[in-house]
């Protein structure tokens, strides 16, 4: 018996439809399921913890208001992250920091997907390094490691072309490796 989608994807979609039906329990489930993940992401975007909670609270307000208009429930994850990002960016004026053209960024062609740069076994190392990278690198790596998002999904969250995500991810991983090496930690 082969099914096109995994159980979690079906559950997510079902959850959205139950929210669209106005079920309170479904909203509680949605909050419970996504709160920690969204908080981790938003916390990587804003410098203060209090700001991250504020952004998350505003994100939930938007979710409550707009979930009935979510046409494709299968895109819940991307939609939630995009809402959270847009809320944090507009509320804390992060546009400038995110637009900063990183000198190392450039076209990497097809290198990124086929060539990974290092092994990641220690979550603590990743967590520590994430906090020290420039904002654009930090958010792309968070989406990659925490959510295991595809390039297309990350591009939908960030609102940038897939090529940009590809090169950003490549350089972000390299920056993380350099950072860990410079601190004498094994990446």
């Amino acid at each position, binding site marked *: 018996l*082969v099914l096109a989608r995994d159980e979690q994807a079906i559950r997510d979609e079902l959850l959205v439809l139950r929210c669209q039906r106005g079920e309170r329990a479904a909203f509680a489930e949605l909050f419970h399921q996504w709160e920690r993940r969204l908080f981790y992401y938003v916390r990587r975007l804003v410098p203060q913890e209090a700001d991250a*909670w504020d952004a998350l609270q505003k994100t939930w307000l938007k979710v409550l208001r707009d979930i009935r208009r979510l046409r494709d429930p299968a895109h819940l994850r991307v939609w939630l992250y995009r809402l959270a990002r847009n809320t944090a960016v507009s509320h804390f004026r992060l546009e400038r920091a995110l637009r900063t053209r990183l000198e190392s960024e450039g076209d990497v062609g097809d290198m990124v997907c086929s060539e990974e740069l290092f092994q990641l076994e220690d979550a*603590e190392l990743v967590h520590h390094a994430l906090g020290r990278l420039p904002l654009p690198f930090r958010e792309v790596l968070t989406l990659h490691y925490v*959510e295991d998002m595809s390039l297309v999904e990350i591009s939908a969250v960030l609102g940038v072309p897939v090529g940009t995500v590809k090169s950003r991810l490549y350089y972000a991983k390299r920056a993380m490796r350099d950072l860990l090496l410079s601190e004498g930690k094994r990446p």
Partner: protein
Amino acid sequence: VSENRPTGLREQLLALEVPSPSLRERYENEVRAQLEQRLSPLQRTCAWLSLLVNILLAAGLLARAEWVELLSVPAGYWVLLAAAAVGLTGLSAWSGYLLWRGSIHRLGQEPWFEAFGLIVTGAIAAALFWLAWQGDNLATSLQATAVALILFGIVGVLTLWSVQRRHHLETKVKLLELELRLAELAERLERSES
């Protein structure tokens, strides 16, 4: 070197982000407050007005002396007036409920708002019909009838749209529940085979 992402990296990373209990508590309180909005003095006044005016209107509709005469008019007409009265009573009941609770829960209110909107519009259309029926002036009666027909048309279309959307949602939920059961079954089969 190929990247070998450890299973559960997400969980490990999430566990490393330890929130401050006081900030988290403040956030939870604020989210709860957003969901359960206390009525402002203006909203409270509006709810009281709605309660009283709707009760008076409903009572007025039901107590009219012409009511008995209306029973002799074409079938269905008095039913509309009764529906309008029921709608108004429902609105006042809802206002009373809000006043009793002292707050509005933001979740799951939309279907009720929609239903009340439709009932009120239907009641207005019915009242216009009644006026048209009672009026001596043919031109005014025709105008009132035309407006009532337009309102009924709007109510009809919106009701159909709402019912169709709800059915569509229910069908999708049922299909997904079925798909979920199949996925669970597939997983069990896979486990038993392995």
